[in-house]
Structures are given as structure tokens and as C-alpha cells.
């Protein structure tokens, strides 16, 4: 009995010492880890929206329309003058585990770009989704995530339809396409709720305005109309 208590005490002393030293290391590295994460977020937002100067966390207000895709975080990206669009970090299940994408949506509901942040699928097959030199369209040098740029969130997002899959990686292609689609849709819902952009004026039905949206190109027109509506 006495020896058990003694063993427990010694174990507790070792555990306390280990905890104390970890606390010290954590204190030292925590700011570096936080700034590292901030940096990588800033660079990826900048890649999606080159004019971005600031962003605002809107994670709490954005909800996923599909239970298999989770919204990790969401940002309203702004330039000096006006909002540019929404960037959504969403995660879903791919072939070998979770996949995390960052999807940027402009005010006119077009996708400015998709970045693969985290993917553990088979290298050389599904892993090609994050390979910058793997092209699903060799002629135009379009990568798998690259092909989403310029699509509208109301598009079909059908693999082998309007989305070119990665060869021999249908599961990955479908999973990533679904994440993009759901993220895009949630961005659309949020933009609508804030009455930002021009794609869906409240009275008219969705379809007709979506038809006009592709005709007007770029963020410039989106900004002018959003200004006018105010």
C-alpha cells in the first residue's frame, strides 16, 4: 500500500515536471504558430483576391447546406473601398481522409479560385489535386482546382459534366467538387442575406438573374451595382 502511494507520487512529480517544461515551450512557440497561421491565411486570401487589403471573420454567420461538408471558417474580403467577396474554408471527406479547400467567391457569385489546403489522398492519383503541374486540361494548362475559377456558384458542378475529373481518381474528384459546390452555395446564401452583390435581387426569381450575371463580367460591375442598390 505504502509503495503504491510512493510510486504514484514519483509519477506525479515526473508528470508535473513534464507539464511545466511543455508550458514553457508552448509560451515560446505560441506567438510564432499564430503568426504562421495568420501569414498563410493572408497569402491564400491574397491569391484569391489580389486587391484584398483586409478581411473580416464571418465564420459564425455562414452555415453549410450539406452535412458531409463542414465550414471551418469564412471571411469577408475587402479592398480599401468596398467588399470584394467571400472566402470560405471548408472541409469534407475524400478518398483517404479529410480534405480542406479554400474557395473564393466574388460578389457576382463567380468563383475567383480554389486552393487545396489539406489533402492526404494517394500521391500520383487523387493527390494530383494539389499538384501544381498536373493538368486536367493539358492544352490550356488548367489544374484540377484551377478549372473552378470563373465558374458560377449556380453551375451544376457535375464530375464528368462541367467538371473534368482527375484520371483514376473519381472519388477524390467528386469529393472535392462537392466541397467547392457546398462552400460556394453557403457563400451565396450569406451574400444574399447581407444583400451584397447583384446576382439575386430579392423580388425576381433566381434563374433569370443568374442568366444575366455571367454576361456582366468581373468585380467592377458587381461593385457598381451594389453601390447603386444602396
Amino acid at each position, binding site marked *: 500500500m505504502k509503495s503504491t502511494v510512493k510510486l504514484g507520487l514519483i509519477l506525479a512529480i515526473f508528470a508535473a515536471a513534464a507539464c511545466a517544461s511543455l508550458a514553457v515551450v508552448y509560451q515560446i*512557440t505560441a506567438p510564432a504558430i499564430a503568426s504562421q497561421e495568420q501569414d498563410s491565411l493572408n497569402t491564400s486570401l491574397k491569391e484569391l483576391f489580389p486587391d484584398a487589403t483586409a478581411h473580416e471573420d464571418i465564420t459564425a454567420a455562414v452555415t453549410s447546406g450539406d452535412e458531409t461538408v463542414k465550414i471551418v471558417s469564412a471571411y469577408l474580403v475587402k479592398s480599401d473601398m468596398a467588399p470584394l467577396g467571400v472566402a470560405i474554408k471548408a472541409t469534407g471527406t475524400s478518398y483517404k481522409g479529410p480534405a480542406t479547400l479554400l474557395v473564393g467567391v466574388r460578389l457576382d457569385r463567380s468563383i475567383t479560385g480554389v486552393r487545396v489546403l489539406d489533402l*492526404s489522398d494517394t500521391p500520383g492519383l487523387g493527390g494530383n489535386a494539389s499538384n501544381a503541374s498536373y493538368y486536367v486540361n493539358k492544352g490550356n494548362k488548367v489544374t484540377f482546382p484551377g478549372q473552378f475559377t470563373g465558374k458560377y456558384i449556380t453551375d451544376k458542378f457535375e464530375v464528368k459534366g462541367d467538371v473534368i475529373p482527375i484520371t483514376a481518381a473519381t472519388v477524390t474528384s467528386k469529393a472535392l467538387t462537392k466541397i467547392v459546390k457546398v462552400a460556394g452555395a453557403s457563400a451565396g446564401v450569406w451574400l444574399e442575406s447581407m444583400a451584397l452583390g447583384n446576382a439575386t435581387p430579392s423580388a425576381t426569381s433566381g434563374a433569370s438573374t443568374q442568366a444575366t450575371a455571367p454576361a456582366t463580367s468581373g468585380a467592377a460591375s458587381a461593385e457598381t451595382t451594389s453601390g447603386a442598390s444602396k
Partner: protein
Amino acid sequence: MKRNEVKNLWKIFKAGLVYENPLLVLMIGICSSLAVTSNVSNGLGMGLAMTFVLLFSEIFISAFRKLIPNGARLPIFIIIIAAFTTIVDLVMKAYFPALSKSMGVFIPLIVVNCIIMGRVEAFSSKQKVLPSIFDALGMGLGYTWVLIVISAVREILGNGTFAGIQVMPASYTPILFFILPPGGFLVFGLLMSINNGIKSAMKKREALAAKQLPDQRNAKENA
């Protein structure tokens, strides 16, 4: 006496590198080694992270070996190993985010890597600090060089690159097989057989040298 000691330390170091290489001879810790070796930078990073944890765990456990009661030794080993693994994990996240991301869960899993547990239990809990340092360096670097060799073969054949730099001509079609898990097993098996070949050749040479030694001595005495 002193020369003997140095010789002994060197022997401990060499044992880890070749004769008792954790992967090729003791065959422990294989799981992590096959999982992360699809490219060279991962192999190197994993090897060094593992060496660091092994080195500091062995130093600490050897230094405190008289204070660690036999009955509670395993939990105490785990606490010490886990503390150093967490330190490596935090430092990597803070200063090498790309590497930390690509190795994912395998860094935290160093805690349960059987090489560390095995060496701590078999070696440093019974030895002084200095031999423990050499054991840790030998075993750690032995693990690292095997990882680098496996990952180099797999990356060059399976992706046409070495540490991310294109080395094969553009016309080369990567053999995907090598990057996939079965390729890892194949390369690992071949490496193991090469190591066995070298080992038996070295033993033969040593046996031959031992035979020749008395002959030479005899010759000298005669002269």
C-alpha cells in the same frame, strides 16, 4: 582504459548505424518509416525529429535512472518521451509549417514509436549518460539514413524528383507503384537484403583478419 572507452562508444554508435540498425536488423518502427517516405524531405524531417526525441529521452532517462522506480518505469518513460515529442511538434509547427503539415499525424505518433520505447527500456535505463547519447545518435541516424535512402529511391522512380527538384528527364514517366505503399515495402525489403549482404561480407572479412593476425605475430617473432 580511456582508449577502450572511446572504442566502446564508437562500437555502440556503429551498432545503431549498421549491425543493429533499428529498421533493417531489429525491424522495429517500420510503420512510420514506410508511411512518410514518399518524398525525401519528409524522410529527412521525420528522421531528424525522431533522432531528437530519442536523444533527449535517452539522456533524461539515463540521468534519472536511479530515481525512476522499477514499478512505475513505463509510465514515466512515456511521460518523458511524450513531452519531447510535443516539443518537437510545437517547434515544427512554429518554424517549419510546411514540413509539419506534410508529415501530419506521424510527428505526434513518435510517442508510440517502438524504437524509442525499445532503446529506452533496453539501453538507457541501465546505462550511463554518455553511452546513452551514442546509442541514441547511432539508432537515430541509423533510422534517418534508411529513411533517406528509401525515400530517395521512391521519389526518384515514383515521381521523377529528388527533394522536389526534377532529376529525371521530362520524357520519363513516373512509376506510380513506388510512391504507393507496396512500392515502399519492395524498396524496404531490397534494402534489408542489401544490408544483410554487407553485414555477412564484413563478418567474413573480420573472421579472415582474426585468422591472419596470429600468423603475422608469429612471423614478426620469427624475424
